């Protein structure tokens, strides 16, 4: 059976490159935390202060927020809104598209300014886009997408039976 859609994988060296870029960005922009979320709502990685909220739920909502705004953009004749800004009393967030596949979410407070975030995000989005384009073309070039090691399926099935079996 074919996998649900084109899958992609994310390796240690990708993580290290991305983490370096995000750490430098957070330092330059004086922002608190950055999350990378893929367009399907899955968290890819975080950098900076550890989020105190449920980052899994946060990621699904951030992706939905971005997707809904994409549709709003197309309704008014724009191809996309490449960034979104949500302002709070103390905490604010800035979301930016990366290579049409991933969303960079930056959380910041009044130690910095929206202008600073906006300027610095532009650069970091360019750098991240290069990495993600490379990563996606690598996944696309792999003949059958990412694979799990043998034994994974049996073990996962046993676990599914154990978890959901008597409920």
């Amino acid at each position, binding site marked *: *059976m*074919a*996998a*649900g*859609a*084109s*899958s*992609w*994988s*994310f*390796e*240690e060296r*990708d*993580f*290290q490159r991305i983490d370096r870029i995000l750490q430098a960005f957070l330092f330059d922009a004086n922002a608190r935390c950055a999350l990378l979320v*893929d*367009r*399907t*709502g*899955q968290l*890819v*990685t975080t950098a900076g202060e550890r989020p105190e909220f*449920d980052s*899994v*739920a946060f990621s*699904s*909502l951030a992706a*939905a927020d971005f*997707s*809904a705004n994409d*549709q709003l953009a197309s309704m008014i004749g724009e191809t996309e809104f490449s960034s979104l800004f949500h302002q709070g009393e103390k905490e604010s967030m800035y979301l930016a598209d990366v290579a049409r596949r991933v969303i960079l979410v930056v959380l910041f407070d009044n130690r910095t300014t929206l202008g600073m975030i906006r300027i610095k995000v532009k650069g970091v989005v360019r750098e991240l886009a290069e990495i993600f384009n490379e990563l996606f073309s690598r996944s696309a070039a792999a003949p059958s997408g*990412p*694979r*799990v*090691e*043998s*034994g*994974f*399926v049996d*073990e*996962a*099935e046993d*676990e*599914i*039976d154990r*978890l*959901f*079996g008597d*409920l």
Partner: protein
Amino acid sequence: MSMINYASREINCKIVYYGPGLCGKTTNLEYVYEKVSPNTRGKLISLATETERTLFFDFLPVDLGAIRGFKTRFHLYTVPGQVYYNASRKLILKGVDGVVFVGDSQVERLDANIESMHNLYENLAEYGLDPREIPFVIQYNKRDLPNISSLEELQRELNPHGAPHHEAVAMRGIGVFDTLKAVSKLVIKSLS
């Protein structure tokens, strides 16, 4: 689009519950939320209207735990059932790994089921997907109600390709985990 994150050693898979309005998609998720142990599942997020109709989606992450060193997690989503929320439905299907179609067994909802199934085929086709080629399970819900179509009729109208199917009474939890088990196993198999 299952994502295998070798850096954080995580595998996340997306399962979407689809079907016509008021067929019991949210009820399925609520039952799962209620029954699985709190350390296995995350928060149930519901973007619903004031009358508790799903407006955008419900979301529930369920952890399988570490399998061969990979933290494996299913992200369960529902879509809004009403016809006019199609834009939202399409968005939720993005990157889906497995689909559960929840059918309403009541005779008067047969047309709504058929319309929703067509809509599912159309929306998946926009992502280049076909329910015959992806993990896909059908649940016939509300089997306890008096005025229901026979299983044969439902199968004929909604399941000509013979996808795995389960009968259910989601309000009482009957068939909920059989359905979830079936689709999650298909999704896991599709990773290999």
